């Protein structure tokens, strides 16, 4: 399972702040989601990072 942060991201840290799995980090000036840690928040309806992200296309599901 995984989600991906695209280059629409403007680095507001909101996703990193709410991720319960600690799957989001910043590397070389870009936010990334670790696919092995990400659970897509399967405990609730939809991922928390997508719910708080202010930029509509910054976090997408990996097909």
């Amino acid at each position: 399972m995984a989600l991906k942060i695209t280059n629409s991201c403007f680095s507001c840290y909101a996703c990193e702040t709410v991720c319960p799995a600690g799957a989001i980090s910043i590397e070389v000036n870009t936010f990334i989601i670790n696919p092995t840690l990400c659970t897509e928040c399967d405990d609730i309806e939809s991922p928390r990072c997508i719910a708080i992200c202010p930029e509509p296309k910054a976090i997408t599901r990996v097909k």
Partner: protein
Amino acid sequence: MDNNSDTTKAATRPSCKSKCESDTLTSNINLSKERRADATPAGVKQKVINHPCYSNDAHHKYARMHLPVAPACNIQCNYCNRKYDCANESRPGVVSELLTPKQALLKAQAVAKAIPQLSVIGIAGPGDPLANPVRTMETLALIRAAMPDIKLCISTNGLTLVDHVDELLKLGVDHVTVTINTLDEVIAAQIYKWIYFEGRRYEGVEAGRILIQRQMEGIAALAKEGILTKVNSVMIPGINDGHLPELSRELRRNKVFLHNIMPLISKPEHGTFFGLVGQREPLTTELDEVRELAGGNVSQMKHCQQCRADAVGMLEEDRSAEFSIEDINPEPEDYTQTMAGRCRFQSAVISKGVSETEASLVVAVATKNSEQIDLHFGHADCFKLYLVTKNQHHFIGERRITRYCSGDNHEQSIETNETNLQTTIKALHGVDLVLCCRIGTPPSEALAQENIRVVIDYAYHAIDVSLADIYSRYAPLAHSKWQARQKVEQQKVEQREVI
């Protein structure tokens, strides 16, 4: 403006380590049971007298700084586009750099040294401070521990405020600004695109209902703890303008101290929803009219500059560009020296120069209610500082400390007591006399070693009366300090002449 994202990305991400350190720092700040903030008339007066955003008089004399440590937000307001900046509390433009809590402390100490008028440090974004609780609380704890003479302040949208009031009280934050634009969920649906609450996104009227309920719970909790509350409202013509007087009535019922109605900023180039759909800004006459109507309920702040989340300096200026983190010395000088210099500067401002031309004493008072000398030295978590000259005395500020001894907590270790005592003595640097109602032997001896005299003769007496009396008793001390200072100044002049 787009290149802002690069500078934001350059900020270091706080690691798990810093989260753990934050927990330790916060818990170290005050181990004993928190005392409600002093909300007596005298206490409130002293809280606002040197806060430029709360007092029209103070904004000519004191400076503020905002530390940009809080990038995330949990609400999308239609007047804000954080891709560039947060219009909620800021003028158009970008936050030039995000800071980690440790960088924020370095910048704060550099600014406190360069701008002695600095009295208050706040966190106002660029997102919402309480949507970044780890970064915000760690920053507040670092400043509180290192800079005892600084007031702490935050500005929030209020969505998670009620969850953090206890921690804010613990850290000695006694000013909180909450942005409340409406109490009507239908109006709220036109102002907020969405909110993020407990793991999910809410929109429309439902979002408005949750936000308003949480904001009201938040300001009620602040009032209960005696934390001074200011409410900011963005005036949006045709949306909430007619509702603002009603809002101010409700704020009055909730003991809000000050209401700041700010004009909407909606230039299309800022890329906000309101800017893009052509929502107009209010005219000055409309703003004045609404302030006038609301002013019957809560005092109005009219000198707000809607400053940036990294603003530095007096309200009318922004010197943030002078304090880029790259240019700041990572090894700051001992803050006690900076603090003593700031105390002298602020004393001169408050006494209109008298402290520079006459002998004087700096007196620290242990008081619960800001009216009487009614606290044991070891029970004080804040000392009120006064400048006392032959004919007058003035309140000059506070020194916040971790209570040296907590009467009801026998588990507190001897080591912790010792550390707290050392920190307290350091925080009282530059003070000549301490007035308290009682004091134990160890602190009394430690103060004597630092040439600080303790006076308990005025226990439970009014502060005003005691200060009026004390100069005559300690005039020789004031004179010897005065002569020593003159000598130092003279030596400085001679050194400069030699160079």
